[in-house]
């Protein structure tokens, strides 16, 4: 083969592979980014919208959870944003302050449905008196327990633990079953999982976790120490599997799903997931407890929907937000799929009649908290945050006081910036 032929064959091969790469984009009228863990719920709503709005269909792009904030921030800086975005509500303060989102005050103030949205959502989406988003696919943390294991361990399978001490006592009895059966589980290397399921127990016991502004004391109150001490004891007694220490969230769901875990803090999403993936698992749902009977809390999570500045379809995007707050959508899009509506008044509906466990999550939404803070990633969600370092040092190394002190110092210095 001559050189000319060889090189043209070569060039042809290159061009072919280049063309291959252009065949992937597809036409849609609106684009929407959704973080992965909210994708299932969001898809229900978007599908419902698309069937009724053939002329302005929405295409969903799923972004891995740990990249959502980065992508949205870099995208906003690059002027390359979707028309709608559904992301972890906790980042609202950072994004509102940065000016990445469209002001929706005029639109939502006049929407009677918006008035009924859960306080936690309204609060987190408001900055300087302006509204920048609405509740979209709510989730809230809860405590789940395995009824079969409770029965085997001689505990009342219908009564979930109502205090931390009770969790500890129940976990001890379940661990006594031996083998691979453990009393309690938590993802020991996952900061986000623990702000979701571990911090509410501290809050229930009266603690305040994150500082909103410089000068606030982080991790304030006895609840922090009480929860860490109890968990450290459970770890030391071997009630928690050793693998929990390195779990960065990969087993947050699958551990309990395996049927070998007695009690675990989890989220409302778990109910429909377990019913689908582990139909034989007999489990109960209760609100996360504190130290004393009657103390309860929850972390209000899930996604808010907002319109990035630079959205090319802001008018239709606004229409979508009004639409998703209506009774019909809240019921047919969310409740029908075992997801709690973002308007608490709708918790009493025909779909939840047969599933009291979902009603429990709807109640949790009422007692739940969500911290309105900047720098959430810095303080909590990053791989080496003070929050996760505190949990690991306290629970796995046993230095509870030292851990709290160190975390307080570094959170204070983060907020002081």
């Amino acid at each position, binding site marked *: 083969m001559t050189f000319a032929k060889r090189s043209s064959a070569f060039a042809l091969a290159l061009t072919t592979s280049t063309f291959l790469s252009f065949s992937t984009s597809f036409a849609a009228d609106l684009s929407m980014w959704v973080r992965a863990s909210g994708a299932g719920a969001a898809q229900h709503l978007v599908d419902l919208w698309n069937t009724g709005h053939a002329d302005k269909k929405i295409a969903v792009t799923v972004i891995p959870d740990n990249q959502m904030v980065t992508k949205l921030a*870099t995208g906003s*800086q690059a002027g390359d944003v979707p028309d709608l975005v559904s992301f972890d509500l906790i980042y609202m303060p950072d*994004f509102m302050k*940065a000016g990445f989102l469209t002001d929706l005050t005029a639109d939502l103030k006049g929407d009677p449905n918006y008035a009924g949205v859960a306080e936690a959502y309204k609060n987190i989406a408001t900055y300087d008196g302006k509204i920048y988003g609405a509740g979209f696919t709510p989730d809230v943390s809860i405590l789940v327990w395995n009824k079969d294991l409770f029965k085997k361990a001689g505990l009342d399978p219908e009564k979930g633990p109502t205090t931390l001490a009770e969790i500890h006592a129940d976990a001890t009895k379940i661990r006594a079953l031996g083998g691979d059966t453990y009393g309690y589980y938590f993802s020991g290397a996952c900061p986000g999982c623990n702000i979701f399921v571990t911090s509410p127990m501290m809050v229930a016991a009266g603690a305040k976790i994150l500082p909103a502004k410089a000068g606030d004391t982080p991790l304030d109150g006895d609840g922090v120490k009480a929860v860490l001490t109890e968990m450290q004891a459970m770890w030391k007694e071997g009630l928690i599997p050793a693998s929990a*220490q390195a779990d960065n969230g990969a087993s947050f769901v699958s551990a309990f799903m395996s049927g070998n875990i007695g009690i675990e803090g989890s989220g409302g999403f778990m109910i429909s997931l377990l019913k689908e993936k582990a139909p034989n698992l007999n489990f109960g749902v209760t609100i996360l407890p504190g130290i004393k009977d009657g103390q309860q809390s929850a972390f209000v999570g899930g996604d808010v929907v907002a319109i990035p500045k630079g959205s090319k379809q802001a008018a239709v995007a606004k229409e979508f937000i009004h639409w998703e707050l209506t009774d019909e959508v809240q019921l047919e899009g969310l409740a029908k799929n075992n997801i709690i509506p973002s308007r608490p008044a709708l918790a009493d509906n025909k779909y939840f009649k047969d599933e009291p466990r979902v009603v429990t999550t709807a109640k949790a939404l009422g007692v739940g908290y969500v911290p309105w803070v900047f*720098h959430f990633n*810095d303080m909590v969600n990053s791989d080496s945050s003070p929050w*996760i370092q505190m949990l690991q040092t306290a629970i796995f190394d046993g230095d509870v006081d030292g851990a709290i002190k160190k975390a307080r110092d570094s959170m204070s210095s983060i907020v002081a910036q």
Partner: protein
Amino acid sequence: MNSSNASRWTGLIYVLPALIFVCAFVLYPFGQLIATSLTSRSLLGGGAFVGLANYEKAFNDSAFWTALGFTARYTLFITPILMGLGLLLAFLVLPNRKIRKVVRGVVFLPVVIGLGTSSFLWYWLFDEQVGLFNKTLVDLGVIAHPIVWFNTANMALWAVIISVTWKVVGFGMILFVAAMQSISSEVVEASLIDGTSYLQRATRIFLPLILRTILLVTLISAIGSMLAFEQLYIMTAGGPRGQTLTTVYLIYQNSFINFKLGYGAALSVILTAIILCGTALQLVLTNRRAHQ
């Protein structure tokens, strides 16, 4: 070609595109990096000139020193392992016999696999529940129960070292084999007549004659290790407690997760300074050989 002025400039025209590319996409961004490192710029927007404050902060930032320390420890552990095993393997597969050549090819194969991909592969092998590395160790009676490799920084470090060794040990091996084979056979024959033992030949003839290759491969490996990211991002996520964050990981985290572009830029400049020392040494070594 003659070196008339015209042809000197013709030559420049050929080099120009690459030159412009490097200036536009390496030198200019590097200038911007330095500029950013002097500001408090945030990924969320805003920021002001802060002088050397970011560098001061880095100097007092325990997270930075921990990351640099871990990266150095990783480099100091893995480099001798890679060199030692690479050399042993090179001696092992040196003869050009069919089986050895096949083994050479097999040992080298992981070098062409992406580091990200191989890290996912080993993340699976090390898993305490579904991982077959643990199962093999248990089946062989080396350990009684599966180990949770990523529970402590030390075990995590070794897990990463094992996986990276698998992935890159063939790189050194192949370069050592080539260097050994380029030793003239007369030298080896002469030593055979002298009746030296295998060990003597290995240490007194082969090793000294390929010393420069060893040094170069050591440098290349060490520089690569100082820039480690994927293997930790995928296998340990920096845990436990951020003890396995490398310098590049810390930069990624500061710039893109915590939005602190200015501080991340300062860390990047410091890292560049460290790497620069290594590559300068590498170029000096390369050139000395080229001029011999």
